[in-house]
């Protein structure tokens, strides 16, 4: 496996879209997320040498679950993009699934994986460079300009003020100033008005062209598929109140949440990129490209479209750079740039999907093609129909499960070892997976101080798997 193909699983559409959206929204955890995702290939590079995985049902079940969750996350991003562009969710899922299946049955499948990754990175890179040159600002200058804005408001050219834009999933946004919104398509909207200490909930069924007046302090909940038009020049509901608030949110992040992100994403990266040994140049290039590319994209998106998080999908921030084409003296149309973003996401998906098949092949051998195809089609069906789930949910679950059930036992020395008559990796993986599922299932019963575990079950599952392998593996040696 070449270096390029070994890293193909990492910069998938869900991870890239989530990071860009976090930067563009000024999320408190964004720097930690960015740094962890960027450093993950280097962590994978320095992890202990790995032996080929033993064939056993536990490894197969874990591989299938991880692949299913990550494919679901990636396909959700593509489906969201389709919904935002006016197409159907299933159309994007069918196209992406067909391309991924095609890439694996073609001769020289490994080579096509590298080609898909190259196309994906190049297409997104072109859009980023076009946005930067059109705006005439370096990323740090764009950041400075965005941070200097007294308020993040709807600008001219935004679809939210021109024709009205679509909510991809149920979204609740608070209003900091009064605003009149107009329903572009019929829909039901929930308004929570604050009347002193009392909250009044009203559900409004609006027809196309009907308007709603919201006061400062009100919140509005829009259902998926509903379309609204906002007033130009007004503050973006749900966005940071000002540029300085957007730029300064990160230093106020919770250290526990940051630790949870580091463990989930870092261990997940080590599990997904096991074949990276001796690929220092590739891992280094990927680390620097992710860090520079994502933060630049986020800064440009905030400057061009501060409302890029309104629709409820992280992919909106990725698509927002196509608005740079509206600037004068520029040759490409917004639809060309949007097409390039779509091509980039598809390329990243095909590359990531092909790599996710590798552990399934290792775990079961000959039947892997059918199993992988079934997982891919299943993930596509879920992504096309479950539009209420944000990509981060299956992405974090997939990375967390991979980290707890694959990377943690390996770090404890499970490769090549046995616990009783079982491979130590299988026992560690089983314990990691069971603890992971148990924390998810019973997370609501956890007491306050352990609440973080609900969002990051890997914080409990990874140490459990590591400890079991470390202790029992040693006992097995002593007994011998």
């Amino acid at each position, binding site marked *: 496996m070449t270096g390029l193909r070994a890293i193909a699983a990492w910069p998938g559409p869900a991870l890239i879209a989530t990071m860009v959206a976090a930067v563009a929204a000024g999320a408190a955890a964004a720097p930690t997320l960015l740094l*962890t995702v*960027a450093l993950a290939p280097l962590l994978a590079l320095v992890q202990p040498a790995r032996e080929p995985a033993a064939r056993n049902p536990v490894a197969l079940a874990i591989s299938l679950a991880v692949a299913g969750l990550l494919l679901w996350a990636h396909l959700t991003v593509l489906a969201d993009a389709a919904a935002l562009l006016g197409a159907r969710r299933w159309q994007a899922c069918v196209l992406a699934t067909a391309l991924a299946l095609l890439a694996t049955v073609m001769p020289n499948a490994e080579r096509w994986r590298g080609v898909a990754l190259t196309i994906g990175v190049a297409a997104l890179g072109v859009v980023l460079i076009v946005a930067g040159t059109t705006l005439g600002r370096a990323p740090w200058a764009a950041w400075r300009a965005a941070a200097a804005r007294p308020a993040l408001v709807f600008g001219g050219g935004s679809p939210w003020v021109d024709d009205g834009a679509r909510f991809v999933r149920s979204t609740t946004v608070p209003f900091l100033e009064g605003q009149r919104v107009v329903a572009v398509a019929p829909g039901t909207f929930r308004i929570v008005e604050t009347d002193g200490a009392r909250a009044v909930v009203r559900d409004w069924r609006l027809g196309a062209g009907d308007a709603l007046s919201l006061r400062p302090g009100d919140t509005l909940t829009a259902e998926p598929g509903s379309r609204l038009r906002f007033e130009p020049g007004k503050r973006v509901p749900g966005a940071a109140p000002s540029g300085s608030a957007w730029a300064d949110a990160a230093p106020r992040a919770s250290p526990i949440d940051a630790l949870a992100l580091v463990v989930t994403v870092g261990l997940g990266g080590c599990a997904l990129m096991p074949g990276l040994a001796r690929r220092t140049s590739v891992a280094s290039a990927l680390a*620097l490209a992710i*860090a520079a590319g994502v933060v630049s994209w986020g800064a440009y998106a905030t400057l061009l479209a501060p409302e890029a998080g309104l629709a409820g999908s992280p992919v909106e921030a990725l698509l927002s750079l196509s608005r740079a084409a509206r600037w004068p003296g520029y040759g490409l149309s917004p639809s060309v740039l949007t097409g390039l973003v779509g091509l980039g996401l598809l390329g990243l998906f095909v590359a990531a999907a092909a790599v996710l098949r590798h552990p399934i092949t290792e775990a079961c051998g000959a039947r892997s093609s059918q199993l992988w195809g079934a997982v891919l089609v299943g993930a596509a069906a879920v992504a096309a129909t479950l539009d209420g789930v944000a990509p981060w949910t299956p992405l974090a679950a997939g990375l967390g499960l991979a980290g707890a059930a694959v990377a943690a036992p390996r770090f404890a020395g499970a490769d090549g070892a046995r616990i009783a008559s079982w491979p130590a990796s299988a026992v560690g993986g089983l314990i990691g997976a069971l603890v992971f599922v148990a924390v998810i299932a019973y997370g609501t019963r956890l007491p306050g101080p352990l609440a973080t575990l609900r969002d990051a079950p890997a914080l409990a599952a990874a140490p459990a798997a590591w400890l079991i392998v470390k202790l029992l593996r040693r006992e097995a040696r002593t007994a011998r």
Partner: protein
Amino acid sequence: MAERGRRIAVLVLVLLLAVPPLATVLPGSPASVQVAGVTLLWWYAACVGPLAAVLATLLARAIR
């Protein structure tokens, strides 16, 4: 990569990852200090951290 170099690289990478959570709890909010209009925390996450990590990994490879 030699075992000693690998261990050093792991330690350095983990320390680099620990900086953002630690920076948020330090007194005086050093992470909020701005350099050229961008906070130190963002300079670290986007430039200094990844560059230091790449450098540490390359140096660790040279250690036998």
